[in-house]
């Protein structure tokens, strides 16, 4: 039984039967069908763990890839089925005894996460980029995570053809957490989902095949800072619970609105105490802003993005952001709309420093992965501008932006995996000089992604940016739009710089080569380009979808 289901059981019992504990046991109702996407992925993850234990080493890779892909596809099918069944709109509801929402934003984001994860997993499974080691094809992951880098043990593991196929179950667990995260409808579920997707990610960061020291360093930093931020989030939960006497979103929202009065007047000093509410709310938001990489909670991003194995970086950059923004949206729109006057100015400021900070610091970056990290920070700022709109258009614009952004990101990092030299991926920008001459196609594709990041019209990046800015302007945040376009202009500078480097610089003699990938990575990149262009040229269908999905169930 999944953690969420268990938890739903307990909270419900606590809430309903607190007067007379244990005198009767009401079986909780769990809407398995509506939770199917999560359950499928979790189930597959558990199967994956079993496979690690029981499937012979040779077959593990294929088993795991097959299992993962099938699970994700099935989960996506379930999401589509639910959406088609009207759960995104008319039949939106709160399932699992109040723990999980099944509504438009949740299904939309779950679908996005699943699709993005699917293409990201393709890059996990890529085994043609690195030269074969002792006759064995290898992927981006270390042969044996426990072996000390450079030690004899590691060499032996490589020779034996070990591979870390555990990454597949890990990524499935992470995906499951991410699926729950934006759907979480009480604070406990929020916290658990956060940990469920964070912990596997910490591990995934540590298992890079090349540059292992950096990979481990990234993992440590991510883990320590992640745990630190979780603590803040949890303390915020505690305070909010103290304020409202419940962890359920609906109840807290009601208390915030003042529609529910304190149960016990004697406890009025905590119940409905606004200081608790404000501090608690701020701390929870802090935890979420950490995950989306907003300034000043962003500093882990460049280091972790750089150190983590590139497929993981792509997955993390895309999917985490989707999940975290989903959760942030739900928290701000469902739990704290009554506090909009308090949090809007603060978020406004965060959005401004995030947009400007990300864009400015990116100018002087010299590593492509760090550059993309700062770019992701700037984009977090843009998305925050949409969040601040506090209108239905704000929700749908953020939803759309997340789709656009996540596919571009996965695609861009997939391209990064292709450019390699003797030391693995050649991520230093100077090595990218003249790439356009050597491999026009790869460079052109990357240029398309960069242009999309820069928000040039006819790419998805522009449509998304337009959507959030429009929502922000309609929501009365015109100043934010101006800051947004200014930082877009600054941001354009470094995207253009990379294009200049690729196309207008002479190739270096000892430059990197572009590896020819298997159809897996090709698919990832192709999907990225396709989504980028389709959302740029004919975004109407997806905008409609986002707009229909833009209503939270309460």
């Amino acid at each position, binding site marked *: 039984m999944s953690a969420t289901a268990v938890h739903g059981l307990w909270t419900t019992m606590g809430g309903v039967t607190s007067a007379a504990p244990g005198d009767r046991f009401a079986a909780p109702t769990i809407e398995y069908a509506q939770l199917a996407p999560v359950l499928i992925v979790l189930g597959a993850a558990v199967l994956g763990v079993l496979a690690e234990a029981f499937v012979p080493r040779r077959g593990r890779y294929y088993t795991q890839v097959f299992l993962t892909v099938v699970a994700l596809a099935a989960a996506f099918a379930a999401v589509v089925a639910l959406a088609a069944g009207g759960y995104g709109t008319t039949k939106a509801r709160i399932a699992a005894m109040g723990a999980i929402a099944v509504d438009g934003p949740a299904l939309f984001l779950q679908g996005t996460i699943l699709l993005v994860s699917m293409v990201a997993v393709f890059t996990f499974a890529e085994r043609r980029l690195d030269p074969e080691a002792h006759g064995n094809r290898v992927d981006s992951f270390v042969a044996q995570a426990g072996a000390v880098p450079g030690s004899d043990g590691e060499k032996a593991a490589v020779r034996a053809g070990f591979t870390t196929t555990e990454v597949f179950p890990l990524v499935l667990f992470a995906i499951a957490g991410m699926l729950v995260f934006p759907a979480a409808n009480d604070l406990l579920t929020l916290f658990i989902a956060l940990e469920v997707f964070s912990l596997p990610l910490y591990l995934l960061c540590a298992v890079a095949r090349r540059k292992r020291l950096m990979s481990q360093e990234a993992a440590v930093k991510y883990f320590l800072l992640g745990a630190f931020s979780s603590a803040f989030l949890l303390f915020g939960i505690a305070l909010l619970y103290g304020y409202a006497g419940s962890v359920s979103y609906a109840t807290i929202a009601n208390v915030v609105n003042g529609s529910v009065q304190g149960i016990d007047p004697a406890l009025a000093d905590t119940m409905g105490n606004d200081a608790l509410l404000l501090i608690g709310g701020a701390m929870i938001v802090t935890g979420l802003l950490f995950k989306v990489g907003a300034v000043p909670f962003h500093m882990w991003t460049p280091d972790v993005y750089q150190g983590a194995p590139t497929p993981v970086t792509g997955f993390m950059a895309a999917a985490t952001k989707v999940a975290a923004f989903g959760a942030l949206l739900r928290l701000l729109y469902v739990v704290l709309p009554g506090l909009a006057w308090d949090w809007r100015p603060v978020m406004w400021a965060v959005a401004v420093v995030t947009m400007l900070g990300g864009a400015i610091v990116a100018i002087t970056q010299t590593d492509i992965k760090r550059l993309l990290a700062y770019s992701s920070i700037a984009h977090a700022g843009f998305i925050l501008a949409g969040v601040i709109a506090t209108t239905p258009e704000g929700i749908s614009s953020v939803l759309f932006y997340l789709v656009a952004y996540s596919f571009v990101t996965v695609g861009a990092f997939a391209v990064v995996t292709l450019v390699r030299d003797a030391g693995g991926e050649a991520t230093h920008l100077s090595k990218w000089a003249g790439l356009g001459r050597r*491999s*026009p196609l790869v460079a052109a594709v990357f240029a398309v992604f960069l242009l999309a990041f820069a928000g040039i019209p006819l790419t998805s990046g522009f449509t998304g940016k337009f959507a959030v*800015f*429009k929502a922000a302007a309609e929501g009365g945040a015109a100043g934010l*739009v101006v800051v*947004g376009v*200014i930082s877009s202009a600054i941001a354009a500078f470094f995207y253009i710089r990379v294009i*200049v480097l690729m196309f*207008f610089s002479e190739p270096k003699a000892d430059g990197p080569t572009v590896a020819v990938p298997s159809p897996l990575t090709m698919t990832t990149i192709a999907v990225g380009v396709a989504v980028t262009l389709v959302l740029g040229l004919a975004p109407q269908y997806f905008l*409609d979808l986002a707009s229909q999905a833009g209503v939270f169930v309460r």
Partner: protein
Amino acid sequence: MSFPLLTATAALPAIGAIATAAVPAARRTAAKWLALLFSLATLVLAGLVFVRFEPGGDRYQLTESHAWIAEFGVRYELGVDGIGVALLALTALLIPFVILAGWHDADPLETKSSRWRPTQGFFALILMVEAMVILSFEATDVFLFYILFEAMLIPMYFLIGGFGDRAHSGSDENAAAQRSYAAVKFLLYNLAGGLIMLAAVIGLYVVAGSFSLAEIAEARANGSLEMATGTERWLFLGFFFAFAIKAPLWPLHTWLPNAMGEATAPVAVLITAIVDKVGTFAMLRFCLQLFPEASKWATPVIIVLALISIVYGALLAVGQRDIKRLIAYASISHFGFIVLGIFAMTSQGQSGATLYMVNHGISTAALMLVAGFLITRRGSRLIADYGGVQKVAPVLAGTFLIGGLATLSLPGLAPFVSEFLVLVGTFSVYPAAGVIATSGIVLAALYVLVLYQRTMTGPVKAEVRGMPDLRVRELAVALPLIAVLIGLGVYPKPLTEVVNPAVKHTMQDVQKQDPQPEVEAAK
């Protein structure tokens, strides 16, 4: 449903671009011919638009309207007025010459890997720019226009940065650095302007709830849409800023000399004769039409900026040592005239400005392309490296001189008509401005004649000796352009006929009337 002529006119070069890009690496010449063919076919379609357009008819004709992004209130709406028709014709007319003039500009210097296809890319990009520019002249939806306004920067950027002028002083590496500096400057400058405009576009939507030019104009006319003065001014500034960069207007001009200097001559023509026209065109169509009050409010400042552009551009042209930069600064001066004509807000000024856009396109193309032929021969852009060319290549010198004379607006050539209209139109409302602008004609003579004297006359320099005269291909570029310059100089009526009604509409938009002459008023 009738045949979507406007879409076809824009789609044809786009298809051509894809087709050209797809030509195999080895078949370079085929790619060139294919590109030329598509550009000529586009010219035919543009001619059809010109013919089908009825000067006395509706304001926007040959309209098309399709749903596109309903979520943003965006429609795929096309339509042309006289101004659009004129500029569309200009674009379609010039591109074949640009292609022809750049015939060898993108031949690979040495054999690179088989996947590297610069020639195909060069011509495909030119056609891509053509498609976008044409569509932007046709767009009657603000959003559609904006998208094209921004998107056309990308192919231009690659054209400037990827296919630089091979004639340069200093090392190859230095030249590459200069070139990419120019390209990046071009892109960032224009992108910055475009992004500011994006904020204004969004603001416009928030205020007006629509992107359709017709809808907004109607709503403003019948009073259902009222903009607060402050809002209108901010939005106007957002739009104008972008257009002033594109145009370019002093002090936002510094990207142009770099870009034109580093790009090949045909690409420089593409920049200044075609793409920049989108900026001035948009001032007429969007600034005046959407924000008439704010336009009038900003007029004094804009007039001053335009005057500075005229005089400053001309003076800087005099001080240049590089042929192409000289022409670039001359263009800045000319754009000053165009802006002046637009914001004088008189019939003559606006008709003049529109004609000016067309004529400047043709005259600069003539001058720049011939200058390009010259530069290719000698391999240097520095004026000081030439001398006495007239003696060895008289036809080249002759065509260059005619291009120069057109640039200095010699009567009898097309630019004179437009320049005089602009001056008269300005003078009748702002006499002082008219007089200052008139001083531009002296300065124009100065920079053109100094350029001609230093390059073409005097003793024949050793490096110039043996320089071949214009070849057939080059004559095919220069002569038709000169013919058009003379033709439109003597008989501009076909153009004024289509432009006049559009100007009348614009004058109604801004609710301005031409000042009455003193004596007639007395009568």
